[in-house]
């Protein structure tokens, strides 16, 4: 009897909010910490770099890293064809890669999500225009668009961010559109409409919170893509102009010396791989968290 009496209130007690006690995904931890390290090294570049990234010491041209025979301890990762310190240039290059990647992801994420929400919620005219625009965008390969725009308007960080954002908003718009269209006629949206909530409020307070997961996952995976595209455009000579060290431009310079030394080409490439890999790992971890099927 006593036992029964005690059991009842427990059963009637409101359910405790469900706490996510899922084990942290290892790729989230590894990707996240690697990424944090790259960000810190990039931000602290002036403090940690042993040399000025632009200073040329012609006597020390094309040195291999210090851990290889022939390297000098003063240049841990060797020097490039102008005798500039590779480590310093790689660390400063991280800043460009990060800034352009982050800028493009934020811009395209905000624009694409807003347009997707609008198209999915309003339907009709807005849907037709936005979705047709996304079709057009898809018929124009990102690299080509970037080549044309940068070639005409010149290459600087702002143009680069704009072009990359232009090539990436479609994926947000499509996913958010599909998700909004399925949620559009659910009760909580109808209820909000019935009590007279404005469109802006419904979009931002009722619909957007339901797709944060998707948007975050796309953002993480697009960040890696943006960095690779930035490197590719810099490699083609269409990125940030020369005095600024960027990984793609370092690789383009190094092409001239592949017959003399593989190191100037190998090192910036490795920097790209490590950075983009950590971003992608992080994105994969996020995706697994939000998409139990994967």
């Amino acid at each position: 009897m006593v036992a029964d009496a005690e059991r009842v209130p427990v059963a009637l007690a409101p359910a405790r909010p469900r706490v996510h006690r899922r084990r942290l995904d290892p790729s989230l931890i590894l990707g996240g910490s690697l990424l944090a390290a790259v960000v810190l090294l990039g931000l602290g570049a002036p403090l940690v770099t042993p040399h000025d990234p632009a200073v040329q010491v012609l006597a020390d041209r094309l040195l291999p890293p210090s851990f290889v025979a022939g390297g000098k301890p003063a240049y841990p990762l060797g020097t490039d064809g102008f005798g500039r310190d590779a480590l310093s240039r790689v660390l400063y290059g991280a800043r460009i890669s990060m800034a352009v990647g982050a800028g493009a992801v934020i811009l395209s994420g905000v624009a694409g999500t807003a347009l997707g929400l609008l198209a999915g919620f309003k339907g009709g005219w807005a849907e037709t225009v936005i979705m047709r625009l996304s079709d057009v965008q898809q018929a124009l390969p990102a690299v080509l668009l970037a080549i044309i725009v940068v070639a005409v308007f010149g290459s600087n960080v702002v143009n680069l961010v704009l072009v990359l954002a232009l090539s990436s908003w479609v994926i947000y718009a499509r996913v958010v559109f599909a998700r909004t269209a399925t949620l559009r006629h659910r009760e909580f949206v109808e209820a909000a409409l019935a009590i007279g909530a404005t469109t802006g409020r419904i979009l931002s307070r009722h619909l957007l919170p339901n797709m944060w997961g998707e948007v975050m996952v796309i953002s993480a995976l697009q960040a890696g893509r943006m960095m690779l595209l930035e490197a590719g455009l810099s490699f083609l000579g269409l990125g940030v102009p020369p005095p600024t060290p960027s990984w793609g431009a370092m690789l383009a310079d190094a092409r001239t010396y592949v017959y003399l030394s593989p190191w100037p080409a190998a090192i910036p490439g490795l920097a790209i791989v490590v950075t983009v890999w950590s971003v992608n790992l992080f994105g994969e971890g996020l995706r697994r968290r939000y998409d139990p099927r994967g």
Partner: protein
Amino acid sequence: MQRYLIRRLLLAPLSLLFVSAIVFVILNVTGDPVVVYLGTEATPERVAELRAQMGLDQPVAVQFVRFAAGMVRGDFGRSLRFDRPAIQVVMLALGPTLKLAAVGLAVALAAGLLLGVVAALRRGSWLDQVIGGVSVLGLSMPSFWLGIMLIIFFSVRLRWLPTSGMEGPWHYVLPAITLATFLAPQFTLLVRASLLQVLHELYVTTARAKGLGERRVLSRHVLRNALPTIIAFVGLQLGTVMGGAVVTETVFAWPGIGRLTVDAVSMRDVPVVEAAVIVLAVAVVLANLAADLANGLVDPRIRYD
């Protein structure tokens, strides 16, 4: 299906008109191709002559109508650099690009299907983990860097393979590997994901229950049903394939449309840039259409409207 097809066929030219308008505005309205091409030291007579030859002395609206009308006929004007019809220059470069893209795509598809199927069937095993890890690593690698590393190792060090050009089958090896490495990870992850969706369908259980061999279940029931997703994805990826080809062609000095476009942009050879972009856009739109059609053939359930 017919209505859907007609709608798509009508929309495709509209997409292309938009693309051409964007290209036209960027290249013709915002800069003066003649001055850039001839340099600032050109005589005013020469500038005026070239401007008249290209129709740049006309109002912008007239220029665009002419441009659009020419586009329909495949006439983009004469290449400033080669002094031949721009479309001819582009079509000449299209062949090498298509050959490289076809070989790279075939290698990437073969690798992606094989690895994706293995990963899905052995889900959660160490093999699945390794394939997943390598795929993500492959996605993180800039293809031009891989290309340069391959050149350093196989061409400079070992002297086994040529670094550039397109003279024989050996010239395909490194560019195709580079392009395939760029594409294969995406295919692998997609094949794995779409197989996992199908593997738990009831009809797969039924197929097993009625005693079909695992091989037959896989080919007739699982792969067949995962195919539409894969085909649609490949169709959508053609833009990416072309983008990847641009960079790959630059690394290996491949005489294709990508390298031609990069060169044409830096020389401000506007007619060639316009022709190249439109030709590539047509290719992408056609590929998407073809992927839709292929899906209709593979999966009779798809009726579109």
